[in-house]
């Protein structure tokens, strides 16, 4: 009696195991697989689902044009659920089980850092579309978002020169991007002659909603007669409470301007912006940019995702990154990672704001820096636009990274010390 029961349970368990183990592992040869690694649930879904849709649209369009190398593209969408370890797990699964040729994904820096060891180990390829803190150049990642010198530094210059701000409040969500960006900005401001006591730094948790105290603190900064400006690296939906409190406190952009690095059209679509008119955002793309390519992109996007949807900067980054990858694959004649990587350097593709993006040997793009003032319709008035700025992986404003340089084409190193003329290390820090 006992043994039959044991056997039965064992058989059931074995059956379960085998179904679990063998359900995967098939690959079709007539398609090129593209992994889409964006959170579709959890806290980051708010930002990342849009990028998944963008990728699906771009892949659909490319297939309509006949695919790549005569093969159809196939999107493999997974959901890492805003769970950072899950990013690593899903990335490994995409590369080894699904055998994707390239991945587009991640939003937060910590998710990228989670994926890094896996793609470096397996020699994969990731396109990362979000503005980030720099201090990194992995052989296996192309950074299509802005490095600090393409967003934070120009925005700070704008504050200093165009708005005459003398005292800075650096408000951020407590995680890597704001921490590193603020560290760079603090040093930059000190170099520009701003005293340490004129820089106020505050970090709040993700999803923070009680902003009255912090807004009051910022107002109180004006007590020594200097013009105050806020540089906000506040992430995600915490922005909504922050801007509502600002508006309630009656702080106009003329009194205390706020420039945000993580607030775009998508974030503002959840908000009544009449009280925010004039506050600023710095990006490499705004939906309001006037160019034929942009008009076409917006039209396609609305047709694909819905009339009320807006476009934003990371979407443009994916647009540029995806098209560059397609061109690089066509140029290399294969989807082999190393061949594509070599073909990527120097790739040029018109971005949506009218200039041309170029992929640099440090895996960053040249991008124009745009500064926009928020309008009452949730769009931005572009008040400043620069020529394309080459992305700098290692910032020049921190002593320890000033001497570092990334060049995968000539030097074959992402962390090259220009003083000692040695490659500090090949792998990335994570």
């Amino acid at each position, binding site marked *: 009696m006992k043994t039959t029961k044991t056997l039965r349970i064992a058989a059931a368990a074995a059956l379960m195991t085998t179904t679990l183990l063998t359900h995967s592992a098939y690959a079709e040869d007539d398609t090129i697989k593209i992994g889409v690694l964006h959170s579709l649930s959890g806290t980051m879904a708010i930002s990342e689902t849009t990028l998944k849709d963008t990728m699906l649209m771009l892949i659909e369009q490319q297939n309509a044009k006949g695919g790549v190398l005569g093969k159809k593209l196939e999107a493999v969408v997974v959901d890492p659920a805003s769970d950072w370890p899950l990013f690593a797990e899903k990335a490994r699964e995409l590369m080894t089980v699904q055998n994707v040729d390239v991945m587009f994904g991640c939003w937060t820096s910590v998710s990228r850092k989670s994926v890094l060891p896996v793609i470096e180990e397996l020699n994969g390829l990731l396109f990362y579309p979000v503005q980030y803190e720099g201090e990194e150049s992995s052989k296996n990642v192309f950074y299509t978002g802005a490095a600090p010198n393409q967003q934070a530094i120009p925005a700070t210059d704008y504050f200093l020169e*165009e*708005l005459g701000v003398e005292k800075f409040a650096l408000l951020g969500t407590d995680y890597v991007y704001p921490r590193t960006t603020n560290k760079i900005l603090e040093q930059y401001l000190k170099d520009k002659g701003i005293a340490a006591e004129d820089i106020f730094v505050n970090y709040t948790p993700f999803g923070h*909603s009680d902003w*009255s105290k912090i807004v009051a603190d910022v107002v109180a900064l004006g007590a020594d007669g200097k013009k105050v400006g806020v540089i906000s690296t506040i992430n995600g939906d915490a922005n909504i*409470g922050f801007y*509502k409190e600002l508006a309630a406190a*009656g702080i106009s952009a003329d009194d205390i301007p706020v420039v945000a690095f993580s607030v775009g059209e*998508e974030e503002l679509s*959840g908000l009544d912006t009449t009280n925010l008119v*004039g506050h600023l955002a710095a990006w490499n793309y705004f939906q309001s940019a006037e160019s034929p390519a942009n008009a076409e992109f917006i039209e396609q996007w609305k047709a694909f995702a819905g009339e009320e949807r807006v476009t934003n900067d990371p979407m443009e980054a994916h647009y540029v990154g995806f098209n560059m990858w397609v061109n690089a694959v066509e140029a290399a004649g294969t989807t082999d990672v190393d061949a594509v990587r070599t073909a990527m350097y120097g790739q040029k593709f018109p971005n949506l704001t009218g200039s041309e993006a170029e992929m640099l040997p440090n895996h960053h793009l040249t991008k124009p820096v745009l500064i926009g003032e928020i309008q009452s319709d949730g769009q931005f008035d572009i008040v400043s636009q620069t020529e394309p700025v080459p992305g700098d992986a290692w910032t020049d404003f921190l002593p320890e990274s000033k001497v570092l340089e990334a060049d995968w084409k000539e030097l074959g190193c992402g962390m090259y010390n220009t003083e000692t003329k040695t490659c500090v290390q090949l792998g990335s820090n994570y």
Partner: protein
Amino acid sequence: MLRTVYLILALSLLLVPARAQDSDLNALIETHRSDIEKPSRRTIGPVLDELVASGLPGVAVFLEHWREKKLWQRKSDGRFFFIEERDDGSIGLVDVDSGAEMGAAAKDGITNLKPNSGVRSMIASALVQFQLSDPDPQRRAQALTALERDPDASHLGVLRAAIDNETDPGLRARKERLQRSLTIQFGSDPATRVAAIESFAGDAGVDARAAINPLLATRVEVFDVIPDDLNIARVLEPGDDIAAEAAYQLLVEAGKARPIVALDARKQALIANLDDGAVGGVPVAELDTQAARDRAYQALAGAGAVPPLVTEAEQRAALEGHVFAEVYLEPDATLTAAARATLSDISSTVGFYRFIDLVLDGLSLASIYFLAAIGLAITFGVMGVINMAHGEFIMIGAYTGYVVQQVIPDYTTSILVALPLAFAVAFMAGVALERLVIRHLAHRPLETLLATFGISIALQQIAKNIFGTQARPLTAPSWLDGAWVINDVVSISHIRIAIFVLALIFLGLLLFILNRTRLGLEVRAVTQNPRMASSMGINPDRINMLTFGLGSGIAGIAGVAIGLFAKVTSELGSGYIVQSFMTVVVGGVGNIWGTLAGAGMIGSLQKLIEFFNPSNTLAAQTYMIIFIIIFIQFRPKGIIALKGRAAGD
């Protein structure tokens, strides 16, 4: 130099004969076309000065249009216009000077000039002298605002002249106040400046401090002996008032001491003096400790190859031989003394107001916690079950508010409709949850906790699937915009006041229901002893259902309130759930006053900790929770504990 300028001017006049008939203003702005096209705060100053100095009649109108982004430029020739929308939809060009019609333009033939806010504020500042005595009070107010933001010395005279004929008492007060603060900054007579400074004693306004503080700016200097003719703020003692390293650095910069050779420079010097696998007689392989490196460096210094190290004794002697002092940039001691006295007076006032503000903030947070937790407290008290889906009822309320706003566009009406509707929807959801799940888990509180958690994750995801992951707007009516501003320190937004009032209303309402109605009597009976209550003819099932519905309904209303000041997402409720639990546990179960006390304590405590640790909100929350854990050690049943049978577990 001047000749070249004349030559260019003459040439440019020759080259544009077509413009000869242009009015003066058009000609003037034409010469600055590139600056006006792409204005920058750094370059626009002289242009504005010249425009204002020209005294031309159209300048003020031109500047106003420009500031308000109503200036356009024709692409074909770069000429500036105002525009007017004609009835037939076409666009008419209007001359900036004469206001005359200049024909029609195609939409893509003209560009709108959008100066950035830095430039706009400079334009506004240039407009001040035109507007300060304008017959339109709104313009005068605008000018004052511009002046408050960006004053300069030239405005003082204009402002003084504009005070006497000011008729509007509000504006007059503002002008007088501004005049005093400008006097402090730009006045020429020390006595009037001191009087102006002293007039601000006890004034909590940021502008007052902003005017006075710059007078007290200092720099640190080093002297052999302090000279008498300087306005010294205080003498600094190295090591106490100023770090010894920083003080020594000052000496080095003043050329009064030898520079310290930094660690890195010493290392570089060693490398530079590498000689046959050794430095200063020490083999390279041994140089893996700082002590060995110091030895090698000293050997090199002994040989004169590198500058010798600065010893600690030498540093101390150098510091002792000099005096360090903070020196006011303002040379007049009477001014700085007055400023100092006034500021210390102001700071005690500000301290008092800051405390008031802290109390208000604490009250506001407490009322939010109260609203979020009271529903939970009722159900917990009556039924002894923890409803993990409580946060999702809050969310349901918020989304109800959002949906109502989609249907009823008027914000005031929609909020008035949304509040009862949110109550109704959440009430029904609560009743359904009670009947379908909780009733079947009677007397199994831990299972109830987990089952409601299952409901909670399902509801959250359903909300995501319906409304998407984007935050949805829930916009307050305009009369709730803005804040009640007592002064620059104490202010509280209208929404928070409204939430506070809402919390009070519910406090009253619940007290009334529980203490003065039949339902309340029955609820209290069931709370105290369900079995006894049931044998007295009370139907505990019905009471449980109604209480649960009531608690959920209030959560729905709390959802509308929270949505108004924060954001409507599917995770809205889960952000409050743990705080709500704490509120209930700290306050004591099954008691409205307890919940009130709990909310009050948690709210004010959190604000207090934030006050002491302003740059880290996360730490404040951590400390608060640790405090609660410790608090419960001493009062495990909460602040207000039930007595008697109901207190049993």
